[in-house]
C-alpha cells in the first residue's frame, strides 16, 4: 500500500475502528517502526519522531499533561532552548485558547484540551499534521469548529494534514483526498483505496447546498466503497 500527503491538502484516512488507522499514524509519525516498508518526509527516511511532523492524538486527556498549565504544555514543544512566548501566544490565539493558557487541564473542557494539543502541535511550525480521530469525543459544534480549523490550517499555512477518522461525514466534509482503509483479516494487513476531490467538490457546492443531494451522493459512494468486500479492493 502507498499513502501520500502533499503540502496544503487535507487527506483523510477513513476506516472502521480497529482496522489499523492509529497504528498507521504512529508509524507515519515515527513513533512506531513498521515491520516492513518505509516512511519518507520530503525524501528523508523517517525512523523516529521528526520535527516537521506533529501528531494530535484522539485521547486528549492522556496527551495533555495534567501537571502543567496549558502554556507549559505548549512550551514543551519548543524544546529545551530559549522560549519565544510570542510564538506560543500566536499559536494559542490562532486556536482561540489564549485566555486559557494559565489554566490547568483539569479545569478545561474536552474541546479546550484538544485545542491545547493542537496549539502544541502547531507551535513547532510543522509542515505535516497527523490528527488521529481528533473530534471523536467532541460535541457536534466543536467537531464542526475543529474541522473548519483543520481545513483553514491546510489552506493558510500550507500544512499537509492527515485526518484519521471513522466518520464518513467529516471525511467527506473536509478532505481533498480520501484513503479508505479496510482490514484484510485473511492476509493480516491494511488495505487502502484512494479517492480524490471530495472536500473541494463539497466546498464548491457552497454552505447552502451541503445538505443537498450531491453531498448525499458522495456519502453513499464512500459508504458503498468502504463496505465492499475486501476481495474487491485494489491490492487484495
Amino acid at each position: 500500500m502507498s499513502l501520500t500527503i502533499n503540502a496544503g491538502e487535507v487527506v483523510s484516512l477513513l476506516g472502521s475502528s480497529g482496522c489499523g488507522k492509529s497504528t498507521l499514524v504512529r508509524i507515519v509519525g515515527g513513533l512506531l517502526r513498521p515491520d516492513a516498508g518505509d516512511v519518507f518526509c520530503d525524501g528523508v527516511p523517517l525512523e523516529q519522531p521528526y520535527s516537521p511532523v506533529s501528531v494530535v492524538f484522539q485521547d486528549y486527556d492522556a496527551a495533555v499533561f495534567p501537571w502543567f498549565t496549558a502554556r507549559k504544555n505548549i512550551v514543551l514543544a519548543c524544546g529545551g532552548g530559549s522560549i519565544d512566548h510570542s510564538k506560543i501566544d500566536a499559536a494559542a490565539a490562532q486556536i482561540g485558547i489564549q485566555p486559557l493558557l494559565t489554566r490547568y487541564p483539569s479545569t478545561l473542557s474536552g474541546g479546550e484540551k484538544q485545542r491545547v494539543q493542537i496549539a502544541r502541535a502547531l507551535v513547532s511550525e510543522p509542515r505535516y499534521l497527523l490528527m488521529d480521530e481528533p473530534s471523536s469525543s467532541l460535541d457536534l459544534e466543536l467537531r464542526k469548529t475543529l474541522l473548519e480549523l483543520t481545513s483553514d490550517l491546510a489552506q493558510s499555512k500550507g500544512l499537509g494534514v492527515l485526518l484519521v477518522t471513522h466518520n464518513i461525514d467529516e471525511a467527506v466534509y473536509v478532505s481533498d483526498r480520501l484513503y479508505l482503509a479496510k482490514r484484510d483479516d485473511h492476509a493480516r494487513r491494511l488495505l487502502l483505496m484512494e479517492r480524490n476531490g471530495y472536500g473541494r467538490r463539497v466546498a464548491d457546492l457552497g454552505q447552502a447546498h451541503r445538505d443537498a443531494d450531491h453531498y448525499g451522493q458522495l456519502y453513499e459512494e464512500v459508504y458503498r466503497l468502504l463496505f465492499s468486500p475486501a476481495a474487491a479492493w485494489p491490492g487484495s
Partner: protein
Amino acid sequence: MISRAKKLLVAVAVIAFAAAIWELSVRMFWPSSRFIVPFSQMLATWPRLGFGAIAVHIGETVYRAMLGFVIAAMLGILVGLLIARWRTLEAITRPIIDFLRPLPSSALIPLATLVPVLGLTERSYLFIIVYGTIWPVLFGTLVGVEHVNQTALDSINQLPLSRFGRIWNFTLPEAAPEIFTGLRIALSISYILAISAELLLGASKSGLGRFLQTLADGGDYAGVYGCILIVALVGWILNGLFRIGEGKVGWLRARQAEIGG
C-alpha cells in the same frame, strides 16, 4: 469533604478514647500487675526519663531513619527508572531482585557486624536501613513507569526534549502516584529498621531502640511502655509530615486528580 483540622481532631479523639479504655481496663482487671501499666503511668514516666534525654534519642533515631530513607529513595527511583527503561537490564536484574527482595534486613545484621567496612559503626545501621527501605521505592517506580499510558508516551516522545527532559517533565510526574506510595511505605520501614537495628546491633549508645533495650534490661516496665508510646508517637508524626509534604507536590496532586485518587 472533611478538612485536615477535622481529620486531626477525629484522630486525636479516637486515640484519647483508646487510651481511656486502656486506662480503665488496666485499673479494673490488672490493678497490681507489674507487666501491664495504665496509660497515665506511661505518660508519667516521661519526666522521669528526662525530656532532654528523650529528645536526644528521638533525634538520633530519626536522623538514622531519614538518612537511610533519602539514600534508599534516590537509589530506588534511579534504579527503577533505569530498569524500567532498558528491557535487557530488567531481564538481567529481575531474577536477582526477586531473589533478594524476600530476604529480611534483620537477617543481615550478623553479617553487617562481621564485614570490616561496616562493623559496629553507623555504616551498619545505614546499610540495614537502606537495604530494607529501597524495595518499595524501587517497585513503586517500576510499576509507575511500566504502566505509563501509551498515548501520553507517544505524546512526549514526539516533542523535542532531551532524555532528561522527558524523565523530568513526563516520566516522574506520570509515575508519581506509584512512586509516592512506595516512598510512604519506605518511610515507615526506614523508621522500623532504625529502631530494630538499634535494638539488635548495639553499635551506638543512643537512639530509641537502644533506649528501649536499656530500660528493658533494667526491668523498668513502665519506662518501656512510656518509650513505646514515644516510638509510636514519633512514627505517627513522621507519617503525618510526609502526608503534608506529599500534598505540596503539584505533580502528584494533578495526577491523583486525573486518576481520581
